[in-house]
Every structure is written in C-alpha cells, then in structure tokens.
C-alpha cells in the first residue's frame, strides 16, 4: 500500500504547461456551456501547482460535467451516477499521496449522491470536490434538478418546482467541510485561484461553481447581475458568519466562505497504529489457538 503525504507544488526539472494536462479529446459540451470555464480553470490550477499527471486522479459521476476526466491527461475515473465521493474516498485512503478531485454536477452531488456528501465532509477526507451547478439535468435534456429555482417549469416539472432549492454552500458548511468556496464559470481566473487554494487545503474542500447551461437554462444574465465578491475583509475562519451569510444571501457571493484545519481522515487512520508490522500469518493465527 503506497504511503506518504499529498504532493503539492513539487517542481521537477520539466515544467508542465496547461496543454500537457489536456487529453486531446475535444469536450462534448454545447457551445456556451459553463463547464468549459471550469475545465479551463482546472487545467490552469494543475499547471500552477505543477502536479505530476500520474499523481492526480479526477473522479466523476454521471452528467454533462462528469465527462471532465476524459478531457484530462491525468488519471481519471468516470464512475456511476452519484458515487464519485465514496470512490474518491477509497482512492485517497488507499494512497494519501494522490491528489484527488471529485467533479460533478448538482444532480450527482446534491440529489442521487447527496447521501455521501455529508460523510465525506464530516470525515474531512483530503479531496477537492468541485460541483458544477447548472440547476438542470442537461444530459437527460432539461428536467428539473435539486438546485432549480422554486417555480421553475421544466419537462419534468410542468407545473413548476415546488421544492426549495438545495443550498450547496450551506450544506457543506453545516456538515463540516473544512474549505468552502463559490466560483462562477464565467470568471475562470478567480475560479483557478479558488481551485488552487482548494487543492492545497489539507482536508475536504468544496467549491460550488455556478456553471450555467446555455442550452436548457441559460442563467448567465441572472448571475452576471446577482454575483458579488465576498467583502475584502471577510473572515474566512468564522463558521457562524459563513452560515449566516449562506442562509440569508440575496446576492450570490463568490470567494472563500470558510476554511479551518481539522484532523484529516486519511492521515488519522494511519496514526491509529504508529508501529506498522508486516502481516505474519502464523503470528496472526495464534489468537485462534
């Protein structure tokens, strides 16, 4: 079993450029899709961190945004709908030296896989979770999603959405994520910065990205109007203030809501037994004699 700590910023002789993180496959997204911005920010973040491609795994579920791994030249895992976080957890626990990113959409992380999210956050698994939120099911063509606005009329909700939209930032804060930020796909440079910080952060990082669907629910105008940077003097270590803001925001705030340091799961489990032994069958079997 590999061992070690997360490799961040190890500069080797060869400098990796943005291009070298691209797989060569052209993204299959529609023109104007917010996910292009997120992908571009992800390339930039990895290049900025100079992570070796063999040390990075991008894990996803199902949905438009979950196609991301195929466009990366790193290791990747395009799994099944909703299970990116437990798959990423297993990878990180098996080899803590890996940089693991779980990327997916609002359906993946807030609906079918929502049951895994609080546990990954509470355990403080050292992975970076990037949620590309377009508030609709794009791949299955325009049904409502858990983050759709109330009243939103879609093919699956012809009378309008009755449920209150899930609040991903609030959800992450309430469940113990130790780095919580929000970005906007139309601001890829700021998003790159949030991603770099998220990957560097030791623990469960959650980055909520408003990533509009140009085809089925074009919200660019809405977000251009509603986004607002967090105040420059925002104290990112105040959980109560972060929760209060996430509860009450009328504007869609961008930036790092919250950050704290807490014991990391993948590290803690390796410290249960400081002295590790080779497994010896004969010794092990003594307990049964």
């Amino acid at each position: 079993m590999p061992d070690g700590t997360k490799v961040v910023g190890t500069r080797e002789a060869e400098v990796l450029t943005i291009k070298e993180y691209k797989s060569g496959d052209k993204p299959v997204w529609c023109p104007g899709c917010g996910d292009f911005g997120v992908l571009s920010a992800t390339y930039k973040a990895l290049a900025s961190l100079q992570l070796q491609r063999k040390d990075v795994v991008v894990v996803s579920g199902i949905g438009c945004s979950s196609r991301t791994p195929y466009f990366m030249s790193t290791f990747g895992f395009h799994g099944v709908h909703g299970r990116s976080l437990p798959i990423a957890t297993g990878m990180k626990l098996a080899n803590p030296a890996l940089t693991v990113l779980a990327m997916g959409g609002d359906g993946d992380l807030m609906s079918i896989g929502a049951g895994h999210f609080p546990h990954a956050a509470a355990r403080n698994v050292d992975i970076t979770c990037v949620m590309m939120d377009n508030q609709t099911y794009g791949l299955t063509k325009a049904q409502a999603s858990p983050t759709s606005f109330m009243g939103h009329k879609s093919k699956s909700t012809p009378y309008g959405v009755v449920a209150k939209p899930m609040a991903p930032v609030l959800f992450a804060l309430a469940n113990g994520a130790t780095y919580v930020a929000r970005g906007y796909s139309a601001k890829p440079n700021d998003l790159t910065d949030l991603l770099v910080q998220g990957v560097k952060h030791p623990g469960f990082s959650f980055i909520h990205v408003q990533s509009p669907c140009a085809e089925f629910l074009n919200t660019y105008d809405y977000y251009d109007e509603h986004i607002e940077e967090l105040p420059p003097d925002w104290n990112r270590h105040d959980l109560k203030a972060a929760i209060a803001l996430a509860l009450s925001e009328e504007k869609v705030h961008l930036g790092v809501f919250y950050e704290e340091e807490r014991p990391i799961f993948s590290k803690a489990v390796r410290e249960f037994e400081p002295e590790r032994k080779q497994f010896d069958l004969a010794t092990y079997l003594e307990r049964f004699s």
Partner: protein
Amino acid sequence: MARDDFIIRIGGDTAIGGVISTGENFATAAARIGFHTFTFRTYPSEIKGGHAWFQVRISNRPVYSLGDGCDILIAFDQEAYELHRKDLNESGVLIYDSDLVQPEPDGSLVRYGVRFQNIARHELEFVRGTNVLVLGVMAGLFGLPPTALEEMVKTRYKRRADLMEKNIQALRHGYEYTKKIQKEDKYWLGTADHMARLIMSGNDAITAGALHAGCRYFAGYPITPASDILETMASQLPRFGGVCLQAEDEMAAIASVIGASYAGTKAMTATSGPGFSLMTELLGLAAMAEIPIVIVDAQRSGPSTGMPTKLEQSDLFHALYAGHGDLPRIVLAPASVQNCFRVTVLAFGLAEKYQCPVILLSDQSLSQRTETISTVDTDVFPVVERVRPNGTDPESYLRYKVTENGVSPMAIPGLDPHTYVAPGLEHDERGHPRLSSEVHETMTAKRFRKLEAARKEIDNEELCPRYGPEKADLGIIGWGATQGSIREAVDRALGEGLQVAAMHPRVLNPLPAERLSEFVSSVKHVLVPEVNYQGQFAHHLAATLGVRPIRLNKISGLPFTPGEIHGKIKEVLAHA
C-alpha cells in the same frame, strides 16, 4: 459402551444471558485440549430477549457437520425444553433447571434436574455465575478436565481478580456437585490428543485469508451476519498498514473499495443479502471498468429484511445475475471453515488476475459457526499480484487492450506514468467512450473471455472435489456449507451398500463444466440439496449442463443435517 462423539445443545432466553457463551466456552475449552468441535448457533433478531440456542458436536475424531438432533439438551427454561425435546436422540440426556422447567414424565430420557439459579443465588451469592456453574456440571458429567475451563476463566478475567475468583468458585462448585449425581447416561469424552489446533469461525477464516492475500483496504456497513468481518478489519488492518472504513451505506462501501483497488490496493467488502442488493449498481461498474474487488455475501434468510439471524443459500441467483447488462463476475462458495481461508485467498487471486468482481458466498451458519481445524493451508493458492504495464511506453498505453485471455495490464496512479480513465461507459481500448456496435461487441467478448480463462484454471479436482465411488446410482452435487452433512450422509449410505457419490464445486461461476459433466455421466441420477426454495443451484446446473436434477430444498433457517440427506438418498434409490 461410552459414546465419545456427541452433541450438546443449550437453549434459553437471551434475556437471562449466557446461552451462547456457555456453549462457546465449553467448545473452546474442549478444542484447546485437543478435541474436535463443530458448533452451530441460532439466535433471535431482537435487541434483548427471545430464544437462542447453541450446540456443539464434540469428539476426539474429526467432525464435519453439526450432526443429527442432539444427545444432551441443557434447558435453561421451559421454552427450551418444549422446543428441543423432540430433537433429543434416543437415550438422550436432559439437564434442566428444576425450578424453572417441568419436564413431562418420560422413561426414555436420562434426566438431571439441578437448581442452577437457586444455587448461584443462595449458595454462591453470585447470580451471574449461573453459566459457569452449568459449565462445571457439564465438565463433571461428560469428562472434560475442569482445568481446561479454569484456564479460560483465568484468561477472561485476568484484569478482574474478584470476578475471576467468583467464577472459578462457581465452576468448581458445579464440578463437585456432579459427584453427588448418579451418572446414568453413556456419554463420556474420550482422551484428547492435546494436539494444537485452531478454533475459528467462517468469518474469522475469511478475514485471515483476506489479510494473508494482501487485502489492505476494507469498507463495510454493519449487517448481520457479516458485521464481525468489519469489526475484525477495523481492529487489525491499521496494524498492517491498511485502512478500514465504516461507510455510510453499502453503495459507499463498495464504491470506496473500487476506488481503493483502482489506486492499487487489494480491497474487499462484506455484507449480507440486503446490502448486496444495494451494491449491485457498483458491481456493474467494477465489471465494466475491470477493477479487481472481492465481495463477501454472508447469506441470511428471505427477501427484504427476511430473517437476519438465520441461514439460507438463497442469494445464488443474485450473485450470478445481479446487475443490468452482460457483466462478468466470478462466484465462489467455500464449503467449510477451513475452506473459507483458502477460497478467500483464491478470491483475491482471481480478482487480481482477471480484474473483475469476485463474490464469495458464505451463509449465517458458516460465517458464525466455529470448527476446530488443524491448520490453514497457504500452499494451494498463491498470493497473486495484478499485471501492470511495466516497461511499456506510456504514450501508447492501452488500458483495455484486447488480448487473447481478455486481461490487459492495469496501471496504478502515483506509481505508473500510464494515465488512463476508468470508464463506466462502453469504451475503446484506451478507455474513452465509444458507443459503436463493433466496439460493444468486441469489448463485451473481451470481458467475458476472462471468465473462460478462469474456468480452465478452476476446472480441477482441487476446486471441484469428488467424494465416493467412481460409478454410482446417485450423484449428489452440493455447494457451500452443506458439504459436511452431504459427506456424512454419503458415508452412511455407502455403509448400507448403496452406490452414492458426491461433488462439491467451490466455484459456481464460471462452473467447472468439464468435471461436473464427467460426474453427471458417471451417475444414474443427480440430487441437488440446497437451503433455498427455488432450487437455485439446480436451476443453474440445468441451464449450464442440461441436467435435470432431483431437488431437495429446505428453508427452515437451519442447515441440513446428515440424516435429512441420508433419508432423501434412500427415498430416491428406493424409487429409482
């Protein structure tokens, strides 16, 4: 003449406590000084209260099944007496608490009434010592040296001197008490051989096998009767540099196992039917992305929540067919506690070699019963490591390269520069989505070629042993934990001059078709006994080999006894 191979059954309400532990302590003490034991337990699926029973078959010769009925019944209460009286064999012994049990007059039984609770309360002033008092009485009546039990009490209470003292006192009191009893029965343990043996449960052997095979990641969700694998892994894995995760649900458990294996660590999960139902989604992913994983399903009774603490062999269809689409998986079924170890080592070997999910079917009786075994064998199945793209060019690496046996080298993140994406979508050799009919045909065939390669590897005597004569009137094909009862039944039938043979494959998918066909053609009739209603294995054999077996099914939540199978053999051959 004394009988030195006999079955003791203990029954009572779990609210009083100690039914299972009394039996377990007796069995362990006997095993430690060299007797062979085979235990069986069944208990209510209640938080507290309800009838539980435990039995131990004990002998100075090897024992392979729980046996038929019981020879000695220890009834803690009236319910225990009433429930088990009918199972007492001829010239059986009833030991009962004479304040709590009113047995009917019955001249065919030897009866020893002892005021267990009263003695514990008033003479020993130690009510909780009732169980140990019973142990002392059992030791005295049936010839187990009391020192063996004293050693156990000493170990158990080594940090509680006061309790140790009281328990030893209760034990000796019980032993001395039997000197006042006129022994009228014929049960007396022979001489123990004092050979060192292991006393393990099926779950213990599965866990040991997994650790030996190199499993260093385990994830699970608590479920009867598989929870103790999770608990053992939680305490043991950190000592050997491994990690155990108690997951939020079974989907997360198997998903994280897939993630860990993808990252290069041998990984396993263990569950029972309800949990395996939830895991089905991810089973397909492991097959599609070709990730080696091991799943233990300790089967229990019934659909939905069913009967959580009772056994059944009714998840076979589920193991064979779970998941949408055509997905290859290997299904194994160990036949005894000793077999659990090697079959688990084999499970990892096949998973790593063929990069697919391997399901190991145990059941409640096998997982939770204990057997004395001489040793575990490590030479039959070697520890296998997966094949990696060593020395090849990372730029031209094809993770899903189409090969003759279907196996393609698997790169490990962090170690190999051969990056790739593991896909749930149909994919080309590189692993990238490709949904054309040609690709789907080619890749499905590639994935299934691994099973054909695996079949050739497992279609042998070691993994599909035959028992009995080369030609027979009746051939029994069994699977899983029924092996011991089948073999004893065959022995009895052979002793009566009947021509009966048996075969017991450990691999249920892919089936060892050559050996099974050979067996089928060497017998006139085929009988398939299994603990399920639908005859799932009989159906599988019919579909694969074209045979139409005679079925013997049982769904009482209890294992087959040798007598039940022997009875069926006689019935079939009488009408043949």
